[in-house]
């Protein structure tokens, strides 16, 4: 290992040779191992550690989504749901690597990126700003290697896909979900993402979504809604008399674990979106992210207690996630106090939202729409209400801070545009899949459980009987 290290020590710097002064230092220094890195080198080192570390935390959210979704569904479908949540990141990776990243961040028009298939093309990252030369100019504000940028953006794309998994749970074909994932992460998500984070038209309008209330969460929610519309509710969810037949989740232990995994992951999701270590910013974002979540737990738990008679644990979990989704867009543009109220409101939105979707017969087994769609929208608009020039992110004040309707309007336009586009595209995608390979398992299989019909494997095989 030592040997290869020496080799590496040498040759990994060669490519830098093209990068001018700053790196010449470090290359020079490469001759005498002892020579320490330059300050510029050190900044790249620290930033890369931060970007990868936070990306790993976001990756970890895959486990969280799987646990929450499986826990809120029935044991007879658990293997299927867990399977979906496991493979979804693999297929997201392949789609995003092949085309998604290029559509989203490759240089192109204000509508779509058009460079960088399979990450191919010029790129002299970690160079920044003017010094950056390459095809991913929209990411030239962060000074880390290209593969770090890709990996960080990838875990976000993966998140959008996992949101859908919850909406369509307990009735969709495994294969159909996989195909949809490829379309969502390969085409739809990157397009709207390009508008906002890829230097597209919404970015130019001044639309603000720091870590993805719209880019990731609302998009995932819209795509899931489209799926629900074409799938219909699970058999038995709505009684003939129109009343709701609750279908209790099979493991609150999984839900608990998933909830905390997601909460933890959000400390990568939001603070990491700086993609650079700005001490004040990452500390502020960690604080607002956590406070919004806590405020939402408070309000959702109390509201459930009042409206439903008990502190429904699943509502508390939905509430926590609602607060996290809501603060995602604004975490860096609002004050600490602002984040408290944004979270508080998120918790008040999510509980009625769950009841509402049930009432209009939208069967969302895990509350993903109430969490990611409803609060993805609220979070995006919250920038328009609570944005403060005092915040690290600065920028225009929101309505409540005397900034008038300006920012709010922009946020509203962005919300509409992204929603309309995503809903349209994903409806089409789901429809195509339905026509070709079908999306819904047959009633008998649904009754028996997808674990046996789709996976051929029970989630919890008993000892005594099976052997």
């Amino acid at each position, binding site marked *: 290992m030592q040997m290869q290290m020496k080799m590496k020590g040498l040759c990994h710097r060669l490519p830098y040779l093209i990068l001018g002064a700053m790196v010449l230092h470090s290359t020079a220094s490469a001759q005498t191992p002892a020579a320490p890195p330059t300050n510029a080198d050190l900044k790249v080192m620290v930033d890369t550690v931060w970007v990868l570390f936070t990306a790993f935390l976001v990756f970890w959210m895959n486990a969280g989504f799987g646990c929450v979704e499986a826990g809120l569904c029935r044991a007879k479908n658990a293997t299927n749901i867990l399977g979906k949540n496991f493979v979804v990141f693999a297929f997201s990776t392949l789609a995003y690597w092949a085309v998604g990243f290029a559509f989203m961040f490759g240089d192109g028009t204000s509508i779509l990126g058009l460079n960088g298939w399979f990450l191919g093309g010029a790129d002299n990252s970690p160079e920044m700003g003017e010094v950056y030369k390459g095809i991913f100019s929209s990411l030239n504000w962060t000074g880390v290697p290209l593969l770090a940028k890709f990996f960080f953006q990838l875990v976000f794309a993966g998140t959008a896909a996992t949101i859908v998994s919850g909406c369509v749970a307990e009735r969709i074909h495994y294969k159909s979900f996989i195909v949809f994932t490829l379309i969502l992460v390969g085409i739809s998500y990157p397009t709207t993402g390009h508008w906002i984070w890829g230097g597209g038209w919404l970015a130019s309008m001044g639309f603000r979504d720091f870590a993805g209330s719209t880019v990731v969460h609302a998009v995932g929610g819209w795509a899931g809604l489209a799926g629900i519309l074409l799938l219909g509710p699970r058999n038995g969810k709505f009684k003939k008399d129109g009343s709701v037949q609750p279908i209790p989740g099979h493991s609150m232990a999984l839900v608990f674990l998933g909830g905390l995994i997601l909460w933890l992951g959000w400390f990568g999701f939001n603070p990491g979106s700086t993609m650079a270590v700005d001490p004040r910013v990452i500390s502020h974002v960690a604080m607002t992210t956590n406070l919004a979540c806590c405020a939402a737990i408070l309000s959702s738990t109390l509201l459930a207690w009042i409206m439903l008679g008990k502190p429904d644990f699943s509502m508390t979990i939905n509430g926590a996630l609602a607060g996290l989704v809501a603060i995602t867009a604004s975490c860096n543009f609002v004050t600490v106090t602002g984040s408290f109220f944004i979270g508080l409101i998120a918790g008040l939105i999510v509980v009625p939202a769950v009841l509402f979707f049930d009432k209009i017969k939208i069967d969302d087994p895990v509350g993903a729409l109430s969490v990611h769609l409803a609060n993805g929208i609220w979070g995006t608009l919250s920038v328009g209400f609570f944005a403060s020039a005092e915040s690290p992110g600065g920028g225009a004040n929101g309505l409540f801070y005397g900034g008038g309707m300006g920012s709010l309007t922009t946020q509203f336009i962005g919300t509409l545009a992204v929603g309309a586009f995503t809903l349209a595209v994903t409806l089409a995608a789901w429809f195509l899949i339905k026509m070709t390979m079908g999306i819904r398992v047959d009633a008998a299989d649904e009754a028996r459980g997808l674990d046996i019909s789709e996976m*051929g*494997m029970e989630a919890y095989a008993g000892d005594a009987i*099976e052997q």
Partner: protein
Amino acid sequence: MKKIEAIIQPFKLDEVKQALIGLGIQGITVIEVRGHGRQKGHTEVYRGAEYKVDLLPKIKLEIVIADSNLESVVKAISEAARTGKIGDGKIFVSSLEDAVRIRNGESGDVAL
């Protein structure tokens, strides 16, 4: 006093229960069982090795009733539980000698 043991499809439990309550039958005991019968099971493949699952989840109901109710109850159950497909299950009838309500020691039909 008759004892009725009915083996039905799990997803029929609710309908059957309602039907019985409709008849004024209150006392029902429900047991999760697995059944083997004409209904073919399914083959699961676990890590490449096949195995037949020929014990399928069923629900067993035990209901003790006064002789007079026998016919109506059997009828109610079989109608509520019927899908017409193999696997619907069976109803078994046997006679019981006595019943005691633990709470107050009452016995006989009044205890049901």
